[in-house]
Each structure stands twice: as C-alpha cells, then as structure tokens.
C-alpha cells in the first residue's frame, strides 16, 4: 500500500508543472500500467488526500489503464 507515497509524488510534480504553465489545474491525467504495482482505487483515494492544501486541491484525477509498467503523469487540464 504505497499509493499514498505515489500520490504525494504525483501532486508534487503536477503542482510544479501547473506552476510552470500558469492557470489553475482542474484535472490531472495519468497512465497506470497493470505491472506498475499500483492499485487505481487506492491511488484515486490517496490523490484527494494528497491534494489537500496544495495549489491543485480539488483537481480531478483521470486514470488511463495500460498494459506495461507505466507510472506517468501524461497531461494537465488548465483553466486560465
């Protein structure tokens, strides 16, 4: 159960990238591979907690399943 650690890393990177792009991050798109060893439900739950009191609080997590070992932040939805 390391999804909370993964979620904290994800929020850090999404916050960094969001700050670089400017505007408010309203959704975070990720790819999670079946072999990444990360449970999607637990990640989604942890993401909401990890987001609290950060610049990306309240953003949606959109998870795309893949076959490999991907653990990737793919895109951000930004409101200007």
């Amino acid at each position, binding site marked *: *159960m390391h999804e909370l650690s993964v979620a904290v890393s994800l929020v*850090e990177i999404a916050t960094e*990238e969001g700050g670089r792009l400017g505007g408010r991050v309203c959704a975070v798109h990720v790819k999670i591979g079946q072999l990444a*060893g990360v449970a999607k439900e637990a990640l989604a739950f942890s993401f909401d907690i990890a987001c609290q009191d950060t610049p990306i609080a309240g953003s949606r997590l959109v998870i795309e399943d893949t076959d490999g070992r991907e*653990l990737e*932040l793919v895109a951000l939805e930004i409101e200007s």
Partner: protein
Amino acid sequence: MAPRLVEVRQNILKHNDILARALRDRFQAHGVFVVSLVSSPGSGKTMLLERILTTLQSRYRVAALVGDLATENDAARLARSGAQVRQITTGTICHLDAAMVEQALDGWALDQLDFLFVENVGNLVCPASYDLGEHLRCVILSVAEGEDKPLKYPTIFNTADVAVITKIDLAEAVECDRTALERNVQTVRPGMRTLSVSAKTGEGMAELVTFLEHATT
C-alpha cells in the same frame, strides 16, 4: 473558457529516479557494488545476509543498510558479522526509497567499501516501484511460501535481476515442489537467473557468493 489540455509527460516517481541515478553515479565513482534484497517478511533475508556478510568480510570491505518499520533488531543481528551496519526505520512506510538510502549513508566513506547491501522492508509489492540506485536487485523467496508466489507477485520479479530461493533444507518438510517453483519464476520472467540456498546448512552459499563476486565485473 473551456480548460486546455496540456501534455506534460513526466514519470510520477521522477524525483526518486533522479535521486537513484545520483546515488548510482556516487556508488560507481567510489567503486562500491550495491546489492539490494527484497522479499516478503520471513523469507530468511536477514539470516541469508548475515551469512553473506560473514563470508565476504574476510576478503572484502562490506557494509549493510537494513530497513524495517520498527526495531533495530536486524541491524543488531547483522552487526554480529563484523560488518558496518545501519538500520533504517521507516515508521509506517512499507518500502525504502532513494532518499532514505541517501540519508542513511550520511557520514559513511563509500570509497572504503567494496560491497554495500541494502535489505528492504519485507514486502513484495511496494519496493518494486522504487529504484534505490543499486547495481543488483535480488528477490528472495523461501520454499515455505508456496510454489506459486512468483505468479502472484509478477512485478517484483520483473524489477529484480536474480531470484534466490532460500530454506531449501525445509523443502521436503513443507512439501515444496522446487521444479514447479523454478518453472513459475521462468513463467513471469523468462531467463531469470535463480540460485537455491540454505543459509542454515550452507548448501548453495558458495555459489551465491561466487555469483555476487562475478556480478561486480
């Protein structure tokens, strides 16, 4: 205005990966070969490592880091080998990451070492995601854990370089079909090198030590 979708493409664990790469560079620069051990709790990691440290100690400068949620028991056990040992207590965290390893190395002269072993927290799931900068990752499973363990935890077998099967002196007592166990390793990771040992009787230990010595080159 509708939100715009901006592609960023970043590895979620990139901070760990960057730190792990820096550690790997540091290990390389100091000429220390780093081996990590991952397994479920109770596979015999600590006893195996104690034997390895004791054997290597006569010819090499060896040290170990050992991770657990709580207690310094394993560090105390490993220190009996005479090697330098440090415990990493993770609190509630179920794996080691590169930052914990870096912190634990503080003050150690890496150029004074030939081998550094890193014993991860007993867990076959979470450690798979975290690169520690090691040169060689050994996944360890005992004959008492069931032949299908590799099939149940394919990810860790796919991030490890070698599988070490422990407690082979118990195989008959626990009715382990070692052929099936090895076949299951090959099913999840075709071509994976496996070594079988008993730290208790010493069977297979010489081959394991020779394997480690050759892995450094």
